[in-house]
């Protein structure tokens, strides 16, 4: 690296920063759109030109969580005054909160879908990453007969778009009663991610010098202990990177979730657009659902960002 920058270099640097800023803004625009829409009053959501300045409100989030129906008659002032703040927000939108026979508030379909997404994505990620790590370790450290063929076979499972097998999978799942079950989706997503996880983890584990484990073996540990005490901590970066990718894939998956689930195990991605079609679409509620759906991935990626960065450049430099 040059110790002293020339004027030309400085200008170039500034230009680079400006262009990066522009590109970042282009990428962030849709996210801004969703976030801002999720805080808009309903009547401002679809204005042309778009409303930029508005008083943010939380009513889209309240509506997202609650089961609602159209108001046939306006609530009496007493009813309105007695209602809690969130129910008033629903009244203001010309709707009322649906209650069951005992007067308990009914939740909308969103919270359970969101929970399903979390269950399916987390469990399938843990399974894919752990199985992938073990498999990769085996391929990396031991002589496996036909190693290249096996690895190619594992990779080949990703060579055709998953949609191609959607119908056969659906029929198989119907036969085994796995349709609309958590376990069904978990198996499916684990299988999707496994090949990716094996290949990525193999790259990481190959980079960990064998001597570390040999040292641990000589130090009096079994191979399994050496794996858990030495290889796993060393592979933490790779595991984090792999986990982020697997989680995002499982979290975002739409097609199989749409085909394989209806209600009990339905995840958020097929649910959110299904709300567009029923009655007049309330874009603010859809935006609120999308915004909340973005959060787990964003948080997960943010927490692991250091590992992710290191993971991306891993193996690029010979130590």
């Amino acid at each position, binding site marked *: 690296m040059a110790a002293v920058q020339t004027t030309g270099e400085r200008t170039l640097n500034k230009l680079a920063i400006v262009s990066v800023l522009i590109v970042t803004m282009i990428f962030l625009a849709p996210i801004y759109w969703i976030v801002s829409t999720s805080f808009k009053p309903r009547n401002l959501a679809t204005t042309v030109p778009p409303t930029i300045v508005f008083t943010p409100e939380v009513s889209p989030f309240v509506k997202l969580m609650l089961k609602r129906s159209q108001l046939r008659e306006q609530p009496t002032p007493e009813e309105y005054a007695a209602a809690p703040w969130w129910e008033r927000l629903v009244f203001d939108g010309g709707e009322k909160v649906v209650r069951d026979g005992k007067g308990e508030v009914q939740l909308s379909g969103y919270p359970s879908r969101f929970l399903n997404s979390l269950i399916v994505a987390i469990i399938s990620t843990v399974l894919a990453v752990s199985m992938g790590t073990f498999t990769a370790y085996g391929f990396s450290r031991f002589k496996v007969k036909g190693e290249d063929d096996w690895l190619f076979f594992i990779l080949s499972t990703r060579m055709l778009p998953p949609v191609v097998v959607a119908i056969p999978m659906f029929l198989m799942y119907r036969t085994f009663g796995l349709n609309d079950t958590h376990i069904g989706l978990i198996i499916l997503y684990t299988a999707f991610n496994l090949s990716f996880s094996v290949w990525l983890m193999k790259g990481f584990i190959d980079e960990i010098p064998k*001597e570390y484990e*040999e*040292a641990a*073996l000589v*130090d*009096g540990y*079994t191979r399994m*202990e050496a794996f858990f005490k030495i290889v796993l901590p*060393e592979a933490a970066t790779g595991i984090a990177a792999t986990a982020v990718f697997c989680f995002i894939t499982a979290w975002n998956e739409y097609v199989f979730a749409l085909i394989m689930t209806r209600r009990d195990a339905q995840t958020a991605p097929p649910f959110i657009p299904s709300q567009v079609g029923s009655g007049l679409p309330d874009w603010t509620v859809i935006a609120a659902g999308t915004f909340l759906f973005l959060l787990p991935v964003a948080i997960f990626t943010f927490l692991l960002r250091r590992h992710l960065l290191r993971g991306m450049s891993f193996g690029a430099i010979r130590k």
Partner: protein
Amino acid sequence: MTEIVLRGIQKWFGPVQVIKDLNLTIAPNEFIVMLGQSGCGKTTTLRAIAGLETIDEGDILIDGKPVQHLKCSDRDIAMVFQSFSLYPHMTVFENIAFPLRATRMGKADVDKAVREIARVLRITDLLDRRPSALSGGDMQRVAIGRALVRQPKAMLMDEPIGALDAKLREEMRAEIKRLHLKQGSTTIYVTHDQVEAMSLADRIVIMHEGVLQQVGSPEEVYSRPQNLFVAQFVGSPVMNVSPAAVRDDGGAVSVAVDATVPGFPFPRELLGHLNGHASGGALAMGIRPEGVLVSREARDGYVPVEVHLIEPLGSYDIVDLKVGEAMLRARTSAGFVPAAGERVHARIDPAQAHFFDTASGQSLGVRL
């Protein structure tokens, strides 16, 4: 107090045999250095003793007990790797404590043992650091500390200072020697550096292409090499070896390295020692550079030669002498021969000459 016996060890890597019928007994507390070029099987032997490599035939006995079927964790042997192999995610303290943790030793005892070994190795102030923050020499000390801490039956070292720079190597060499004298555990040390071997070893084991060539004290392998390989592998600068013809013209016996020049005079008893090999023509003479004596004036028994090249090495010079078509390297005091191209006179010290059968490569054991 551990004795290690290798008995008839054979090892193949696919079709390649890397260890060929190796037999060796290592006495308790002995410092053995295995010396050889890369690929000679020395590291494989070491890894086989550690249990990191299986053997195809033979027995490895530690204190009389065969261990070739035991896992490395059950052999109670410590090893220092060339790459140090310090666990990067642990501090120095944790690295040294790691082997003790495998033994389910109490926390206080672990702490005591680690601090004691750190004191011996003078790394107490480094205990909280990570390996990445250490210098090469300190990494090496930590690696040795990790190996020594649980007082293993034997220490194996695989080129432990090969990755250090020359000055540090010298320092660490002395340190390893000091530690061995102090701790006195059976040690097997693998290296391709003969200076390390000579300075550290009680006995040197020289290997070539999977075959043990010679076992002996540094002095023995240097002054009584059993074959041409050992003769040319041990010693720096390398021993001169050239085809030799013994001439016997009645009174005087001489050995010529080139047919066109007069031979170097040798005592008559050489003929008896050579025992008929003199006439076969399959004879090679080896002489270390310090056995080639150089004089600037013509003297009795000296042969005129031409100086081809001078390598000044500070405390001494290595001078390449042209004897007819053959070359002899001599060691002279610094600046003894002023310039290449000069004509000087050389003689061979018969007491330092070695004779080999060129067909078998074996030494004829001539001592004059």
